[in-house]
C-alpha cells in the first residue's frame, strides 16, 4: 500500500484490511481529434481496501474519470495493472457498478423496471424481481415513485433511482463519477447524506470521483488528491471522523481548507505551465 504522504488523521490507520482494488504504475494517453497524443495518467498507483470509501479529487482534466473507467473495465491501461482481488480488470462486470453524472436511467422503463433490469442481469427470474426491486427503492425513499417513468422524477430522485439500480446488482465495488455534479447545492447535500447512510449500512468498497472538496471529505475514509494533467497522486488525506458526519464538523472543515489550499496551488501551477506552453492543452 502506498504510504500516506500527509495525513490529518487523529487515529492511526485502521488494521490492515485485504486489498480490493489496486492500481499499479498505470499510464494512459489519448489521441485527440487532431492527432496529438495527450498523456492523461502518469504513473498512478494506489490501493483500495475492502469496504473502504476513497475519493479521488483533482483539477478538471486530471484523468479522474479515466481512473474510474479503468476500474470499471471500460478502458484498458497503456502500461501498468488494474486489479480487483488480485485479478486484472479486462471488462465491465456486475461486481463493479458505476454511477455517472447522468443518471442514465432507461427512459422506456418505469423506475421499478429500471431496477428490475439490473436484477434480471444478476440472474433473477422474471417473477422474482418485483419485490426485490421495491426493497431497493425503499432504501432510497422512492417507494411511492416506483411506477413513474424516469422523466417524471426530479433530478435528485433520478440519482436515487440510479443508486438503487446500481445497488441492486449487489456489487462488491461502487464506482461514482461526479454523480451529483449537475445538481444544486441543497439537493447535493441531501443526496450526500443519504449516500453516507446507505453506504454505512451496506459497506461496499467505494471509489468516488469529484471535484468538490467538501463532498470528498464528507464522504471518504481517504481522499487522494491528483495533480493536473497528466494526473498522478500528489497527496493523501485520511479522514477519521466517525460517521454519521456533518458538514459543520471541525475536523472536516479543517481538512477541506487544507485540500483547497493545496488544489489551488496545483491549479495555478497547471495554468501557468499551460500558459507557457500554448497550444499543448
Amino acid at each position, binding site marked *: 500500500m502506498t504510504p500516506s504522504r500527509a495525513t490529518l488523521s487523529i487515529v492511526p490507520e485502521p488494521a490492515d484490511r485485504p486489498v480490493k482494488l489496486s492500481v499499479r504504475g498505470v499510464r494512459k494517453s489519448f489521441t485527440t481529434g487532431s492527432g496529438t497524443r495527450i498523456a492523461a495518467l502518469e504513473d498512478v498507483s494506489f490501493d483500495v481496501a475492502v469496504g473502504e470509501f476513497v475519493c479521488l479529487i483533482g483539477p478538471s482534466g486530471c484523468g479522474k474519470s479515466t481512473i474510474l473507467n479503468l476500474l470499471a473495465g471500460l478502458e484498458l491501461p497503456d502500461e501498468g495493472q488494474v486489479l480487483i482481488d488480485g485479478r486484472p480488470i479486462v471488462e465491465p462486470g456486475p461486481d463493479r457498478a*458505476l454511477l455517472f453524472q447522468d443518471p442514465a436511467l432507461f427512459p422506456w422503463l418505469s423506475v421499478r423496471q429500471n431496477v428490475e433490469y439490473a436484477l434480471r442481469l444478476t440472474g433473477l427470474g422474471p417473477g422474482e424481481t418485483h419485490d426485490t426491486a421495491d426493497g431497493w427503492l425503499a432504501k432510497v425513499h422512492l417507494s411511492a415513485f416506483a411506477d413513474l417513468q424516469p422523466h417524471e422524477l426530479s433530478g435528485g430522485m433520478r440519482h436515487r433511482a440510479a443508486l438503487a439500480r446500481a445497488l441492486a446488482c449487489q456489487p462488491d465495488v461502487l464506482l461514482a463519477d461526479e454523480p451529483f455534479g449537475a445538481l444544486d447545492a441543497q439537493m447535493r447535500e441531501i443526496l450526500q447524506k443519504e449516500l453516507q447512510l446507505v453506504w454505512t449500512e451496506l459497506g461496499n468498497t467505494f471509489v468516488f470521483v469529484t471535484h468538490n472538496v467538501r463532498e470528498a471529505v464528507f464522504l471518504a475514509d481517504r481522499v487522494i488528491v491528483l495533480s493536473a494533467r497528466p494526473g498522478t497522486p500528489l497527496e493523501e488525506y485520511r479522514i477519521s471522523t466517525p460517521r454519521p458526519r456533518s458538514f459543520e464538523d471541525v475536523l472536516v472543515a479543517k481538512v477541506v481548507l487544507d485540500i483547497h489550499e493545496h488544489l489551488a496551488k496545483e491549479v495555478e501551477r497547471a495554468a501557468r505551465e499551460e500558459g507557457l506552453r500554448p497550444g499543448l492543452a
Partner: protein
Amino acid sequence: MPRAKRVFDQVWPRAALVGAILLVWWAVYETGLIDPDKLPSPADVWNAFTSNLTGEDGLLPAARGSLIRLAFGLSVAVVVGTLIGFAMVASVAVQRSIGTLMTALQALPSIAWLPLAIVWFDFSERAVMFVVFIGGVPAVAIATAISIRQVPPTLTRAARTMGAKGWTLQRTVVLPACVPGYWTGLQQAWAVAWRALLAAEIIRVGAARGLGHLLEASAQDISLIIAVMGVIVVIGLAIDYGFSVVDRRIRGKRGSPVPA
C-alpha cells in the same frame, strides 16, 4: 385540460385552413376571371367526388388499389432497409460501401428509375413494386443506422457496467433506445414510397387501377382531377396522422419533446 378542449385546439386551426382555402377558391371562381374549364367551382369538384366514388373507375377502388401496393412495397422496403441499416452499424466496410450506395440512391428521385423498371419488368405490378422498393429502402436503411448511432452512449455504458453485453445489450438497450428515431425514419420513408407509387401509376405502370391511373385517365375532367388530388392528400394526411399518434405515445412515455 379537458378532452373536448384538447380536441378543439387540435381541430380548429386545421378547419380554419380548409375553410380559408375553400373561401378563396370560391371567391376567385365567382369573379369569373378564370375560365371555369380550367378552375371548376368547389361544388363541381364535390359533385365529381361523390359521383365517382364507386364503380369500376371509382375513387374508392382506386384508393384501395394504391394502398395495397403501398403496403406490399413498403413492407418489403422496411424489412430489407432495416437489415441493411443494422449491417451498416455493425460493419465499417458495409457502412462505407452499402452506406454510400444508400446515400447515392437517396439522391436519385424514385421516378428516375421508371424507364429502367419498365424495360426490365414491362408495365407490370413488379415494375411498380420495384420503384416503391427502391424509393423506400434507402430512407429506411439510413434512418435505422442513424437511430442506432444516436443511442446515448451513457445508456449502453450503464448497461455494460451492470453486466449486459453482446446480444443481451443490443436487445435490451440498443433496440428499445433507437425506437423513436427509427419511427421518425419510417414516417419519412412511407411518404417517399407513396410519391414513388403515384408517379409510377401516372405513367400507367401496373395492371390494377390506382389513384395515379385515375389522375391520368381523367385528363379531360378537371373536376375529377382535383377530386383525385384531394383524395391523395387526405390519404397522406391520414397515414401521417397514424404515424404521429404512435410517435406521440413513444415520445410521451419517455418524456422526449413532442411536436405540436
